């Protein structure tokens, strides 16, 4: 009988219940799109932020000590052959790119040896393409990047202006194929393939530092404590820290695989990434909450209008002996059935919306996170209950005598 009454009401007032379903669908679609983005945005935003360059610098351990204490540059080096080990750490998939650097001089001009777009074979046998080209996306190159293994070079914009160097010119046997403007020391230097500088400096197989770009998790108290000294962590804290992609734990793991090295997070970039990510996620959370609140308001108005329209029928039920709870359950069942249909439609609509957001903002799809389903379901129930409060209040105050004889 109960379901017959619910079914009858749903069919008879299908337009109003369709509007309730539509309102819930709109709210849930935005909420599920935002939540899917929220769960996936960490990686996406991090990926985007990699455009701002390396967030970890690896240098020889002693040089760091000397520089920290005495401000001196030492003549310590890292081994080029160990570079591949960076891609063997626990968080290997979070290493987006890295590039070695070796400074020297050529005809009294500073020269930096590096990888532009270097294809390397990792100790695992996999191949990996890396270098400054994927890492320094904001660099403006007039010309092109040098090809790996050639005598082609880039010249910084300031240096080129000072020495009147142009594309196609040669410095000794090195051909200028690009003029670079990046806002850093590269503007005043020559950038060449690493072996050229190693040969010039007579340092075969040596590098001065490594810039690493890694996808990291925003820092928290644990990460900050570990950054000071990982040895101060308890065993449990250490395990959590080590198995979380904090910039400090990735740096620590790099130190473990590169001998005699000191890996330091570029704190400003790491913190900026964390802040931008936090703010992006907060924004999405706010949109989720606001969309659900809007849906609640819309549903509330529709349900209240419905109660007014059906007040005689509901009053009759009370007059023939229905309790307040019985009438409320009947109305809630109608609202929830309409809401569930709307919620299901809204969820799938939200998946589509998330893909549009992903493609538009990040240029790639957003992963469908199954955790969103129970969260959205719980939020939808909350919204429907919230939206039903005014209706429940008016049902409680509905006097059969007033609506049946009035």
């Amino acid at each position, binding site marked *: 009988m109960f379901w017959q009454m619910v079914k009858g009401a749903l069919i008879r007032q299908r337009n109003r219940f369709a509007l309730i379903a539509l309102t819930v669908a709109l709210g849930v679609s935005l909420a599920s799109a935002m939540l899917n983005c929220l769960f996936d945005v960490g990686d996406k935003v991090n990926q985007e932020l990699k455009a701002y360059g390396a967030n970890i610098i690896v240098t020889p351990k002693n040089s760091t000590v000397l520089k920290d204490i005495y401000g001196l540059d030492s003549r310590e080096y890292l081994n080029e052959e160990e570079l591949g080990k960076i891609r063997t750490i626990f968080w290997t998939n979070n290493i987006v790119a890295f590039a070695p650097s070796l400074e020297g001089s050529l005809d009294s001009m500073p020269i930096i040896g590096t990888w532009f777009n270097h294809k390397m074979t990792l100790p695992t046998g996999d191949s990996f393409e890396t270098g400054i080209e994927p890492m320094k996306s904001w660099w403006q190159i007039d010309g092109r990047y040098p090809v790996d293994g050639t005598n082609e070079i880039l010249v910084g914009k300031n240096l080129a202006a000072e020495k009147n160097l142009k594309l196609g010119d040669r410095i000794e046997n090195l051909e200028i194929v690009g003029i670079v403007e990046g806002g850093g020391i590269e503007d005043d230097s020559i950038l060449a393939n690493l072996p050229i500088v190693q040969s010039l400096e007579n340092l075969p197989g040596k590098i001065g530092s490594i810039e690493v770009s890694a996808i990291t998790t925003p820092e928290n108290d644990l990460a900050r404590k570990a950054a000071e000294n990982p040895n101060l962590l308890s065993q449990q804290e250490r395990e959590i820290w080590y198995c979380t992609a904090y910039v400090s734990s990735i740096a620590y793991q790099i130190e473990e695989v590169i001998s005699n090295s000191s890996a330091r997070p570029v704190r400003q970039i790491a913190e900026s990434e964390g802040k931008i990510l936090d703010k992006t996620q907060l924004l999405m959370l706010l949109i989720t909450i606001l969309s659900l609140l809007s849906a609640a308001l819309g549903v509330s108005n529709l349900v209240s209008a419905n109660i007014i329209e059906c007040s005689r029928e509901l009053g009759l039920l009370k007059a*023939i002996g229905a309790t307040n709870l019985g009438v409320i359950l009947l109305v809630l069942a109608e609202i929830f059935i309409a809401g569930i249909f709307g919620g299901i439609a809204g969820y799938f609509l939200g998946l589509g919306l998330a893909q549009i957001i992903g493609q538009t903002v990040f240029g790639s799809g957003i992963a469908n996170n199954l955790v969103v389903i129970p969260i959205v379901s719980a939020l939808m129930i909350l919204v429907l209950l919230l939206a039903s409060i005014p209706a429940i209040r008016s049902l409680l105050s509905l006097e059969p005598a007033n609506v049946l004889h009035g």
Partner: protein
Amino acid sequence: MSLLELKGVSMVYNGKVRALDNIDFKIDKGDWVAIMGPSGSGKTTLMNIIGCMDKATSGEITLDGISLMDVTDAELTQIRREKIGMVFQQFHLIPYLTAAENVMVAQYYHSLPDKDEAMKALDRVGLADRAEHLPSQLSGGEQQRVCIARALINYPVLILADEPTGNLDEANQNLVMKIFHELHDEGHTIITVTHSTDVGREAQRRVIIEHGHMRESED
């Protein structure tokens, strides 16, 4: 002992408007009483109080041995469900349920819906063949008879009819009054509230209510 007894019952709205003033009224089991009076006389107020849909401001009311002044709203609902069958002027059938289902709704809130019982009640008012029709497919008289079947389904001690023929033509009015006579003959206790002298005359006893005061009819 009377089935229903009102002693000094008053109903005052907003502390000023005295809709019922010191009413004394008694009805025994098996009686058929018509409460008559013009619009605004207090008939509906009295019916709401007797029908457990409202509480009097003062006085004593006893229905089937239960004092209606000392009960909670929930208990009032229970008394309404178990003791009273209501017939309305405007029928108040649920439009998306069939005639049988409309009768079964009252059963649902009382105990358990039983279609056979509902069919017997419809048969009792001559509507067994219209059981699967929606209210919109029934005439006014038929709808009122469904309303009577719904009022009878839970075997109430009191049938309370508010202007039961107010929306009916003469033929249907006669049909409905015939059913009330049959119910009375079977021993049902009936109160009809009406402003119609003709309908009032059908009852065994008539009381007049005017400006909140009640008196027995002289005719």
